[in-house]
């Protein structure tokens, strides 16, 4: 396979406005963060060179390691629950008729709610004194209190994220499923394929690309989650739900340690960049592996 020689580079000028926008909104702030990460400041625009000291401090700090582990654990759990659940719901949804439209609207509803509102809903929902969930569980004799119990806090956050974001996985998988031509299912019926065989050899290969996008989106979003856990638990009890993003904001805004916070955000950024690259590479590999219906390379 060869990449064709570019014939007309004038199209690049069309990208110029976007490049300018990205420069203003992303590159210049990123440069500023890099500048902050090698200096210390006490305000009044006065800075003192410290070199790579903040990076070394952050990379060897137990606080950072714990926050990173908590964030990775949270993302892992979210993926382990939301991806299979999303596939199952998408498979169960009607593919045509009024039922399909109703299901799609219902599925889209949680995605329309702003993050802080979701956090507030679940904060109230889980309260033992007035919340439906908290009070209901207490009535059943279950000792549940997300403000005091570590496990309860984690369960509440995971349940909240599953409620909020499984719909995204469902909608992506559903779009992949409805695009499968009927002839595949007809062929499977003629061959006497079981329900599992239809899923394994027809549906799963056909939705694997959208599934990968779903995994990427859910991983990135859960890895960068801030608003919802901040509203519900505020990082507590203790530090048990203090994820990297919450820790970063505490360091930058709460403690006003701008240098260490800048170093930490760059490390955070590099981890996200690495994961993005891995997903991008896997996705483009799928693109290259997949046979095209329009014949061979031009």
């Amino acid at each position, binding site marked *: 396979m060869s*990449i064709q020689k570019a014939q007309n580079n004038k199209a690049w000028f069309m990208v110029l406005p976007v490049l300018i926008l990205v420069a203003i909104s992303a590159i210049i702030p990123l440069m500023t963060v890099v500048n902050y990460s090698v200096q210390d400041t006490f305000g009044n625009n006065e800075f003192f060179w410290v070199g790579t000291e903040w990076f070394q401090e952050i990379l060897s700090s137990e606080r950072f390691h714990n926050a990173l582990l908590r964030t990775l654990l949270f993302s892992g759990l979210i993926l382990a629950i939301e991806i299979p659940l999303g596939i199952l719901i998408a498979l169960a949804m009607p593919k045509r008729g009024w039922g399909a439209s109703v299901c799609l609207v219902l599925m889209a509803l949680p995605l329309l709610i702003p993050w802080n509102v979701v956090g507030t809903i679940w904060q109230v929902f889980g309260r033992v004194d007035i919340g439906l969930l908290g009070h209901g569980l207490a009535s059943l004799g279950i000792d549940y209190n997300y403000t005091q119990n570590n496990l309860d806090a984690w369960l509440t956050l995971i349940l909240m994220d599953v409620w909020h974001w499984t719909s995204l996985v469902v909608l992506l998988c559903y779009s992949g499923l409805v695009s499968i031509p009927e002839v595949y299912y007809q062929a499977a019926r003629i061959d006497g394929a079981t329900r599992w065989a239809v899923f394994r050899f027809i549906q799963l290969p056909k939705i694997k690309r959208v599934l990968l996008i779903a995994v990427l989106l859910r991983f990135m979003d859960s890895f960068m989650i801030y608003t919802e856990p901040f509203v519900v638990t505020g990082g507590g009890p203790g530090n048990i739900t203090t994820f990297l993003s919450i820790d970063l904001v505490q360091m930058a805004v709460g403690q006003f340690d701008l240098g260490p916070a800048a170093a930490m955000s760059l490390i955070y950024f590099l981890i996200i960049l690495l994961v993005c690259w891995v997903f991008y590479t896997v996705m483009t590999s799928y693109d*290259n592996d997949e046979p095209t219906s329009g014949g061979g390379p031009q």
Partner: protein
Amino acid sequence: MDLSWMAWTQPTAIFFAVIASLLLTMSIWEYFSPGGGPRLGILRFETTRGDRFFVSLLGSAFICMAWLTLVGLNLWWGLAACLVYTLLVFRFV
């Protein structure tokens, strides 16, 4: 234009100048040799020289972080390791 809010220092300015000149060099290379030189390397997927450049930069950042964590503050040897890594990426990936 007052850029004091960006807290520029000479080392960070040199760092960004190096990155910018590397990008410019890659663009000039692409102009004279278009197509990106795609090939299958040891990772068993196709990479262009832009991919190899990105992998070199990203990998170098992680080498520097590992150097700071495991070895110590003097990053010059870490930078040498990054250069060796970059050469290996451009040769084999």
